[in-house]
């Protein structure tokens, strides 16, 4: 306990300081009620996200281009949290979580390569990863095919995953497989990073957040792959993410076979059923699940503080804040009313108090 307190005193203080900069209930209110896109931006400039925004009076503000710019603050927080941690294994967990953004940029790179576009053309879609990313981006952008990228990243889990996926990519010629391989490799790395943590309390705390997070993603992926991509259940199971807490492969298989929302709900574990019991539309699952996740995160902040869960919870919370902000930004850009916008956001965003 004493060792844990000594080890986490500084990171926790850092996280608490960073957490104090999150959007307040007042910010949520004014952002939601902003009468149009420019008023929304005018208010956003006064928050911590203002630093990442361009000079809105001088530059043309395109919502699409703003989304990634807003992520700058999150990327900086990742770097700060990683720096504050002393142990290599704890840092590896943060880096594994961060690798999801690297994976997103790699996907953009692959899509640009596939469509014959240069970096400049897709620059607005890239996360501003900063120095925390150790991938050789300049070399990667100079590559001309996925096999070359895999060779460049051969010592990285991304490289191995790509190499495993390239035989099927060569047969099918679809980027989807490479993208799935990148995603799966991130979560495989995350799973290994959790089990690689030295302290039991660290492992337990990390699982408390990341296990449900993976479950949420798996549910949303099942819905997406099933409804939008029309994939078969055997494919959906194979594309599921590792490291979930409540959902087993068997659950996922049954969910993939469910015909409608009600049978889908029936196949979910009881504890999850309680959280999403009121859902009656495929599109509403994410709001309920994110709300549940935010509640778990908030609960973690109330318990004993000396474990890695605090840092992970903070990063997840910040990421979800960013996701909500982007949803809000898109809604404002489309001119949606606050009433319609609210339905797309987790409940914390519009007044349900944090636990």
């Amino acid at each position, binding site marked *: 306990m004493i060792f844990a307190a000594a080890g986490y005193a500084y990171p926790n203080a850092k996280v608490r300081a960073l957490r104090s900069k999150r959007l307040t209930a007042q910010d949520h209110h004014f952002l939601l009620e902003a009468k149009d896109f420019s008023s929304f931006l005018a208010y956003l400039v006064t928050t911590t996200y203002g630093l990442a925004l361009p000079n809105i009076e001088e530059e043309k503000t395109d919502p699409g281009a703003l989304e990634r710019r807003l992520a700058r603050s999150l990327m900086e927080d990742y770097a700060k949290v990683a720096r504050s941690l002393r142990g290599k294994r704890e840092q590896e967990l943060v880096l594994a979580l961060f690798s999801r953004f690297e994976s997103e940029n790699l996907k953009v790179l692959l899509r640009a390569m596939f469509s014959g576009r240069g970096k400049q053309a897709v620059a607005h879609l890239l996360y501003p990863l900063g120095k925390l990313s150790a991938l050789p981006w300049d070399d990667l952008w100079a590559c001309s095919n996925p096999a070359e990228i895999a060779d460049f990243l051969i010592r990285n889990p991304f490289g191995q995953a790509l190499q495993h996926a390239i035989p099927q990519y060569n047969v099918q010629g679809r980027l989807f497989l490479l993208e799935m391989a990148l995603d799966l490799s991130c979560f495989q790395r995350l799973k290994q990073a959790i089990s690689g943590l030295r302290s039991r309390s660290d492992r337990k705390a990390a699982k408390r957040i990341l296990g449900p997070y993976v479950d949420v993603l798996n549910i949303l992926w099942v819905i997406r792959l099933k409804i939008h991509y029309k994939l078969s259940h*055997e494919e959906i199971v*194979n594309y599921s993410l*590792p490291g979930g807490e409540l959902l087993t*492969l*068997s659950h996922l298989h049954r969910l993939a076979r469910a015909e409608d929302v009600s049978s889908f709900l029936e196949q979910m574990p009881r504890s999850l059923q309680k959280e999403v019991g009121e859902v009656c539309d495929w599109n509403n699952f994410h709001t309920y699940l994110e709300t549940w996740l935010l509640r778990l995160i908030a609960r973690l902040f109330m318990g004993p503080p000396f474990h890695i869960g605090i840092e992970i919870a903070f990063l997840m919370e910040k990421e979800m804040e960013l996701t909500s902000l982007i949803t809000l930004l898109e809604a404002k850009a489309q001119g949606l009313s606050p009433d319609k916008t609210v339905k797309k956001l987790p409940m914390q965003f519009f007044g349900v108090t944090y636990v």
Partner: protein
Amino acid sequence: MFRPVKLTRLTIQAPEDRISAVMAVLGDLRLLHLIRVEETHLGRLGYVAHIDTSLLEHYDSLLARANKLLRDLGPTGPSSDIRKVHQPDKAVFRLEEDIAHIETEALEPLERKKKAKNAISEHEALIARLQLLEPAEIDLDRLHDLRYVTWRAGLIPEENLNKLEQSLVDTHHTLIPVGRKKQRVVLLAMSLKEDKEVLLRALKSAFWDPLELPPRIHGTIKKALDRLSSELEHLKTEFAGLDTEGAELTRKYGTKLKYLREEILLARQLLKAQTEFGQIDHTYLLTGWIPVALFEELKKRILKATSGNVLVDQVDPKDIKEVRSGILKIPILFNNPMLIRPFERLTTLYGTPSYEELEPTVFLAVSFLLLFGMMFGDMGHGAILCGIGYYVFRKMYRYIDYGIILMECGVSSMIFGLLYGSIFGLEDLVPALWMHPMEEINLFMVMSAFFGVGVISLGLILNLLNVIRQHRYGELLSTSGLAGALLYWLGVGLVARYLLSGELSPFELMCAMVAAGALIILMILQRPVSAVLAQRRIGKKGGRIPPGLGGTILESFIEVFDDLLRYLTNTVSFVRVAAFALTHAGLFIAVFSLADMVRGVHGGGLLYWVTLIIGNVFIIALEGMVVSIQTIRLEYYEFFSKFFRGGGKPFQPLIEEE
């Protein structure tokens, strides 16, 4: 050596049927810097560039064929130089014939060799695939004969096995792990034929890497492997025979091919140079710069090659209006001996000298070596630098210039090492012919400053020469001209007198102050007076005094003050020479102290020498780099800034290495 090669402007007018012969002679001589005719006044007369594209394409295809043959035959060693350049339009027929002949002889055996190599690769890959399945002891014939069951062999990532199993839970199937390879499982997957699509979908989504087995493979894996291994041996024997045949072809045609390739490259360059020519009807015109000494030989050879049907003229650069007015620049062809030539890189890094000014490379080289030696004086380290330089010189053709510079720096270090009596920092092995820097720090600093005075004075003298050569007499009264130089030398003389005698007489001081005052007034007035004279010459309306004269005087005053201050700082800057020489000696002391500290521990004898060696390597790498940077800095900022204007154009010979 102090001037670039003297050039003359050459003009050749040739009928269309003779241009190829002219090009061949030019290609032989090489030292011609072409001027694009279209960009001269002749362009306005209707001369336009024309290039024989079909001939160039023919050469391109010949080059591609020659490159392919060279790639396949793989001869090693450098290419031989072209003895004589032939007319590109005629030579193409011979080159075509020669390449075609080699192709007839070589392509078929090379193709057979390639096929044999591919067959070996295919066999090896197939054997590797089958070896993965070997532990399963499968009889492929029996698998092929299955009527209701479909099967696939392949690899999937380990972490996907459970998911694959789960994804097929509703289907009759079996997954048999056979082995492992690099975090992947070798798997034999089976299902009912009616579920084949489900199985394939599941496998594909589990990142399945199929092990393709051709239909000709049958029987047990072991037997198939034995059969393939014996086939592989047979193929290897066949390949060895073809390899010998290939080596014979390489021996027979390698040198010739390389020569042909050089010829093709040369002819292509000559053809491409045609873009600089001008053509009107059936007459070609080409013009460029050529060393004066080569003109007569070139003229003689061109007239001989064209039976006198070509006009070859030369024009003195002074008689060319564009040159006089500065529109056209005469290119610079350096003319330095071999040991100085590598320093041309350092000169051109700063700027290309103009044709009219003194070529500074020789001064740069001498002062560079002196400064480097002073700062890095040690016989041992000098010898190592010399050795590294020699290695680069012999083994790294691309960096031959740097090899020579390193060797010269090494020799300079050794000479100064002898003067300082230092070998690898040991100062008691040989007596110092001059002094030990650490023992006479003040004297060394003063010597460095005076060395700086010498370098700056040289820069000032070179500037005076440039001013006179370029008739910029007005600048003689400026701070960088004679007035500035006299004032600088006056100051240096006073300091030297004070250091030698310990005091200055009132008379000397009075004379110096009067002279300095007069020179400063001259320097301050130089610009305003020039402005007034220019105004008078132009005879503009509005009086004889140009507007803003007061401002000009004030500016001139500040500039003079700034320039004089710069003389002082430039001189003091040379004290760094002593500082770095002392740093060099100081680092030795640190390394020896460290070595002495570790000598006392267990195994200290070895550690002592290891510390000394690592320390010396560290000093050579770090100090060598720092001293080089400082030397270049002194050269550029303290020396070149005094006289070197640059802005010239480098000479581009007609044929450059491709």
